[in-house]
């Protein structure tokens, strides 16, 4: 059964708070793990376009309120919508599908954020830094996504 929307919003808020506080010192060559991107892909694969898109919109707005000046909301919405297009309920538990989707979503989100930063905030010449961090964020997100799915499976087995 797909999770309820308000429960997903609560998890997203928790993920954003953890990212902006506890996970802040943990970096891999300047890149931070994005729990929200992983959650959006997870939601997209299980719940489809509408839920993942709406979750992306809400969580992006929350991220921008906490620091981002408007560069996150479009990126998270597009990420949620694209993850929702995959909506492969049957394969949603497949580790390779989930991890690859997280990788693609990280790149997509990074590119949209980069474009908005360049066009709207006038930050010029940051492609080198953005692409460098994006590669490492991709690695981090895929690793955390794989770990999360394995933990979810183990928890499922224990419950059974």
């Amino acid at each position: 059964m797909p999770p309820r929307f308000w429960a997903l919003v609560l998890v997203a808020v928790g993920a954003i708070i953890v990212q902006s506080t506890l996970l802040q010192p943990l970096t891999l060559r300047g890149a931070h793990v994005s729990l929200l991107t992983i959650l959006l892909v997870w939601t997209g694969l299980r719940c489809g376009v509408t839920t993942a898109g709406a979750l992306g919109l809400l969580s992006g707005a929350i991220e921008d309120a906490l620091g981002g000046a408007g560069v996150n909301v479009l990126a998270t919405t597009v990420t949620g919508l694209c993850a929702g297009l995959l909506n492969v309920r049957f394969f949603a538990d497949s580790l390779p599908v989930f991890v690859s989707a997280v990788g693609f979503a990280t790149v997509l989100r990074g590119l949209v954020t980069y474009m908005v930063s360049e066009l709207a905030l006038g930050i010029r010449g940051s492609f080198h830094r953005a692409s460098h961090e994006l590669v490492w964020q991709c690695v981090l997100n895929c690793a955390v996504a794989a770990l999360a799915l394995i933990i979810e499976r183990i928890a499922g087995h224990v419950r059974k």
Partner: protein
Amino acid sequence: MVAIASFWDERKLLVFVTLIIVASIVMLVELEAARRGDRSLPDQLITSVIVPVEDALTQTEGAVATEVRTLTRAGTLASDNAALQRKVQELAASNERLKEHAAENVRLRRMLALAQTVPLQTIAASVVGYAPEGTRREITIDRGWRDGVSHDAVVLDGDGLVGHVMDTGPHDAHVLLIIDPTSNVPAFLRDTRTWGIATGTWQHIRMKYIGQDVKVRAGDTVVTGKGEIYPEGIVIGTVREVDRKDNALYQSAVVTPAVDFDGLLHVLVVRR
């Protein structure tokens, strides 16, 4: 079957387009508010709920980290205690000498009639969070306009300049760090009094528009120049390397910030 597929495709397309339009509108509202140095109403609501949670979480994390450090060091506490007692005796002796020096210093100051610099009025604040995705270099502090923090107020810590306040809520404020690429600070090299603009490069600072005839050396101290926002003389950092090309109008320098932005816990906000 085809009709059902087409219905779903249309519905998906409608959701897709609607959500992108809504997200674009939200983005434009946020960007416009950021340009004005203001906060939109939804932002105010969201921060008023989430910032206290961030604050509590940061404090809890600090307390837990301290406890863990204490527990891991329990084995060495006895030897540490003995070493500290010896240190206290040494410090007590040197403290007496320092008292004498301090008294002498006061007398000399009076004799030379040195004008005391007017101290900046500041508000102490704690850092409660960073930008969640690192898309901008900014922090959230636990003081807002009700505490006297205002838009464009300068933020410092013990080592030097941190940044300036972008927008304020009643009990919190966002601070743009000087390493953010949108931050531009009027700056000069303390030794040569040469002006330039210190711009963030995510991890470091680049001091631009330094005249070609100026001799810039690694290790030179960069401080703020008096501007609309910044008071004069606050340390920004030290020059790490100089970028000088013969065919360019200006030279620039890579500056290592004086402040450790990854370990910021407490800051001072200058009252405007």
